[in-house]
């Protein structure tokens, strides 16, 4: 009523177009990812096989590649949404779970569980979340002064991240791991995940993203700064802690599967912001889809490019993300944000 209705309509149309495009691209990429790495099947053969279910080649491909596809997509979504939440808490668009050390903490937790504790599908993600949480608590506490300090949190996180990487490699060396194994899982090898891992990852990611959407309204208010948020009846510290818990949960879930894929939590929200603006009700779902798409295409690309050796998904995502990150930092001189 109050708003310029013409602008509202245009916005609604853009939103609809963007989401439709996302769904279409996801579906196409789903088919591509099933075929990626094998040269003998055509796109249409897979589409046909998916619908009829009686093409043996396609069925085998689905069985082999589907788990990987699902894990890549949902881990990408989890990382992207984790990035949005960390950006909301720190009020800094450059925050990313890998940059502030949460991803490596989660990875370290997972690694310790695999190395020192009995094998279990619960322990590894649990320890990952606990480690991620403790490390972020440490970083947050170190950087939390009376004033808002959004850049300090990034610097401290980077320092903590560097220390954690050394610890991870030390554990690997002490255990006489073949170095390549650890390095491969650090950059996210995604080598044929087990079924229960797939189910756990998908379920945890969906739960985390759903929780994030429920918190979108509060994220929106937090963009106004701590003082105004508090004046508007938001319990700032409590809200931030809840957001951090969800963000760490998502980042740790992803880290146990795809390792430390840096910059994805930055790249996906960045594109989403450019496309649909900063309203978290749109930002969170769109970032999730974009994050999933980016990681999935990185995985497809890695598989197609590297046959017979697969280039780990994390390497491609990080290289692309890193380039964009550098461009972004250069641009921000002009934005003077």
């Amino acid at each position, binding site marked *: *009523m*109050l*708003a*310029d209705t013409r*602008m509202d309509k245009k916005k609604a149309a853009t939103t609809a177009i963007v989401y439709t495009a996302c769904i279409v691209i996801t579906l196409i990429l789903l088919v591509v990812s099933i075929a990626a790495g094998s040269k003998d099947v055509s796109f249409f053969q897979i589409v046909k096989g998916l619908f009829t279910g009686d093409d043996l080649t396609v069925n085998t491909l689905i069985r082999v590649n589907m788990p990987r596809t699902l894990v890549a997509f949902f881990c990408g979504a989890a990382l992207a949404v984790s990035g949005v939440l960390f950006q909301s808490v720190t*009020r800094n668009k450059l925050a990313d779970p890998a940059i502030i050390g949460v991803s490596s903490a989660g990875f370290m937790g997972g690694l310790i569980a695999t190395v020192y504790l009995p094998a279990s599908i619960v322990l590894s993600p649990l320890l990952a979340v606990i480690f991620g949480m403790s490390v972020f608590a440490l970083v947050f506490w170190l950087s939390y002064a*009376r004033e*808002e300090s959004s850049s300090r949190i990034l610097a401290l996180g980077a320092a903590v991240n560097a220390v954690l990487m050394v610890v991870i490699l030390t554990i690997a060396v002490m255990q006489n791991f073949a170095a390549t194994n650890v390095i491969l899982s650090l950059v996210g090898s995604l080598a044929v995940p087990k079924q229960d891992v797939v189910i756990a990852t998908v379920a945890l990611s969906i739960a985390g993203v759903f929780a994030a959407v*429920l918190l979108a*309204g509060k994220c*929106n*208010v937090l*963009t*106004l*700064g701590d*003082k*105004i948020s*508090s*004046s*508007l*009846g*938001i*319990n700032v510290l409590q809200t931030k802690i809840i957001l951090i818990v969800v963000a760490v949960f998502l980042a740790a879930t992803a880290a146990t599967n795809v390792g430390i894929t840096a910059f994805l939590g930055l790249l996906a929200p960045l594109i989403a912001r450019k496309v649909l*603006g*900063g309203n978290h009700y749109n930002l969170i779902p769109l970032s999730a889809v974009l994050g999933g798409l980016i990681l999935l295409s990185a995985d497809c690309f890695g598989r197609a490019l590297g046959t017979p050796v697969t280039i780990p998904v994390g390497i491609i995502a990080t290289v692309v993300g890193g380039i964009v990150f550098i461009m972004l930092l250069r641009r921000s001189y002009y934005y003077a*944000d």
Partner: protein
Amino acid sequence: MRIEKVAFGYDKKKLILRDLDYTFKRGRITAILGPNGCGKSTLLGLCSRLFNPACGTICLDGKNIAQYKARDFAKYVASVYQISEMSPDLSVLGLVTFGRTPHRKPFHHLSEADDAAIKYSIEKACLKGFENRRICELSGGERQRACLALALAQEPRVLLLDEPTTFLDVYFQIEIMEIVTGVNHEKGVTIVMALHDLNQAIKYADDIIVMKDGQIAAAGDAKTTLTPELIKAVFDVNAEVIKAENGDSFYAVYR
């Protein structure tokens, strides 16, 4: 709003406020004056629950403000600050809509009451025609009016303003003061503001508190409380009353 024996310090060694006792009168405009670092902003921060007092209590309608739920308190008390960092891409309308946050249930559309409050605030803050302007396109004065509109949209009964005019030129300073007094007259909103300008305090406030070193040096009616002696004692400057042609009298200060 009653303040009883309130003390506060940012760290344990040094108290900013000591043994403060005062009652802000309902429906009136109170200006807090005092030199930098005297505790004006800190006092407002305590009243808006940005910090909690180290000892003593602040009561609102007979109830300790610490016992209000955050959301209920936000329906009652709104604050405007000196400078506010806001997302630069937000529109004025979007910003003012956030003022309805304490009144709205999550995932619900704006109610008619919300729309009416937003419309009123935008009109009051002289932002008509600016609804779709983005925050980063606004001048300092317009931005401060947008913050004021945000606070007004909360429909508070108490409005706290922390040096709202500090970074504005004289025209916008007067404009902000007129908006604030207008809201006070129309809706009976209790207003407490920290100010630097003595003459603005005399002209626009009903009551004045003068603070020095974390304590109240003087308090009373706006027209009679300030004297050249008091100004000399608190601010360490000489003051002289000057009559303007329109009948107002002003303090001219010099060293």
